[in-house]
C-alpha cells in the first residue's frame, strides 16, 4: 500500500464544465511550419464512440527536449514559439478528438536505448474510474519504431500496431483509441 496517495475517480458525464480550454487542442499553433493534426475516435467495447471523454497528450519538442527541470539534460525552452508539448481535447458528440502539435524527436533512455518519437496519452471518461495511458507512435519511423524499447516489449505485432498512427492526408495522423474489443489499444501501467 502506497503512503497516502489520493485515489482516482471518474470524470463523470459533466467534464465539459471544468476541463475545456479555448486553446486546449493546440500543443502548437496550427500555422506553425510542420504542424500535424492527430485525430481519431475514442470507442467502447461495442465500437460505440464516447461523447464524454477527454484525450490529453504530452511529448518532447522536435529536438527531443523538454522545458522541464527534471530532465537531467536540462530544461530547454522550445525552439518553436508557442509550442508547449501538451494538448487536451474533449471528444465531441461523435466521439472524435483532434489535436495539433509538432512531431517530437527521439529520446535517450537510462539504459542507452533510444525511444522512437512518441506522445504519451491519457484518456479519461465517464465510466472510467481511472485514466488509461497509451502512446502514439509515427508510421514513417519504421527503423526507430523497430528499435524502440516499449514497442519491442510487445510481442504480438497486432497489438503493437495499435500504438502506431495511420497516415492521413498531408500533415495528418489518425489514431483511434479502442478501450476494449478485438482491436483493443495497448494501455500501459505507468
Amino acid at each position, binding site marked *: 500500500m502506497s503512503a497516502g496517495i489520493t485515489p482516482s475517480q471518474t470524470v463523470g458525464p459533466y467534464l465539459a464544465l471544468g476541463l475545456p480550454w479555448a486553446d486546449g487542442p493546440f500543443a502548437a499553433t496550427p500555422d506553425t511550419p510542420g504542424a500535424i493534426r492527430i485525430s481519431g475516435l475514442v470507442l467502447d467495447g461495442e465500437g460505440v464512440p464516447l461523447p464524454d471523454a477527454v484525450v490529453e497528450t504530452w511529448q518532447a519538442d522536435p529536438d527531443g527536449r523538454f522545458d522541464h527541470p527534471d*530532465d537531467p539534460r536540462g530544461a530547454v525552452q522550445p525552439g518553436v514559439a508557442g509550442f508547449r508539448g501538451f494538448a487536451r481535447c474533449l471528444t465531441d458528440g461523435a466521439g472524435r478528438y483532434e489535436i495539433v502539435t509538432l512531431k517530437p524527436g527521439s529520446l535517450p533512455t537510462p539504459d542507452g536505448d533510444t525511444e522512437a518519437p512518441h506522445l504519451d496519452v491519457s484518456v479519461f471518461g*465517464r465510466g472510467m474510474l481511472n485514466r488509461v495511458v497509451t502512446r502514439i507512435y509515427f508510421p514513417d519511423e519504421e527503423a526507430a519504431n523497430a528499435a524502440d524499447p516499449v514497442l519491442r516489449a510487445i510481442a504480438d505485432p497486432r497489438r503493437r500496431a495499435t500504438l502506431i498512427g495511420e497516415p492521413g492526408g498531408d500533415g495528418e495522423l489518425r489514431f483511434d483509441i479502442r478501450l476494449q474489443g478485438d482491436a483493443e489499444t495497448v494501455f500501459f501501467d505507468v
Partner: protein
Amino acid sequence: MTVSNPPVASGGLVLPRYEVAAGVHPPLDSPAYRSSALRHPKQPLVPLAQRLTEITGPLFGAERVGEPDADLTAGHPGEPIGERIIVHGRVVDSDGRPVPDALIEVWQANAAGRYHHVVDDHPAPIDPNFSGGGRCVTDSLGRYRFVTVKPGPYPWGNHYNAWRPAHIHFSLFGRAFTQRLITQMFFPGDPLFPLDPIFNSIPDERARQRLISSFDIETTVPDWAMAYRWDIVLRGRTATVFENGDGR
C-alpha cells in the same frame, strides 16, 4: 512529417522515479459501476518504464487562471443559492514535498444537485448564478483555496434509486505525467457513502476515506462561510533514484 533527427547520446542519464500507487486506485473494471462494463480494457496493462516523457509534464501555473476563477460564486449578476463554503487544503507528494504552482481545476453540481450541462435532466432547478467550474493554482507551499456553494446529491441511472453523494470533481497535474490525477472530493458524514458504487470502487477502506474532506472551524469565516479542508497526495518520488532495467 519528416524523419526525426538521430538520437542524442545518453551517458549516465539518471531519472527520478515515481512511486507506483499499488492498491490505491479503483479497478477500471468495476461491475457495480455499470458504465465501466464496456469502457475498461480486457487485456492486461503493459508495464511502462518511467523514462523522460513520464517523469516530465506540463507545468501550468497562474497564466491559466483568471482573477475570479477560484470563486465559483462570482462572475454572475447575483449570488448563487446554497450553503457558501470555502474548500481548501494542500497538494503534496507522497514523499511529503508540497506541490507548488500547480493548476487545479474543479467542477460540481449546484446546491440543488443539478449540473449546468445539457446532459443533466435531473428535475432540480438550474441556478442562473452558478456555472460550477473553477480553477486555481497552488501557492509556494502547495496550498489551494476555492469559494463555492456546497453541491447537492443527485440521482443517476446506475441502478434503482441511485444517488451520488455530494462531491466536487478535482483535476490536478502535479509536475510529471506520472502524477496526473482526476478525482472527487466528498463531504464528511454523507449517508450515501455505503450506497455509492463509484466511491466504493476504491478497494481499500483507508484510501476511500482519503477522498472525504473534513469540517474546518478554523477556516470558517464568521457570518459568511463554512469551510472544509481536503489535502491531496500525488505520487511522490521513491527514495532510490538509481534504477536499471524496468524502473517503474
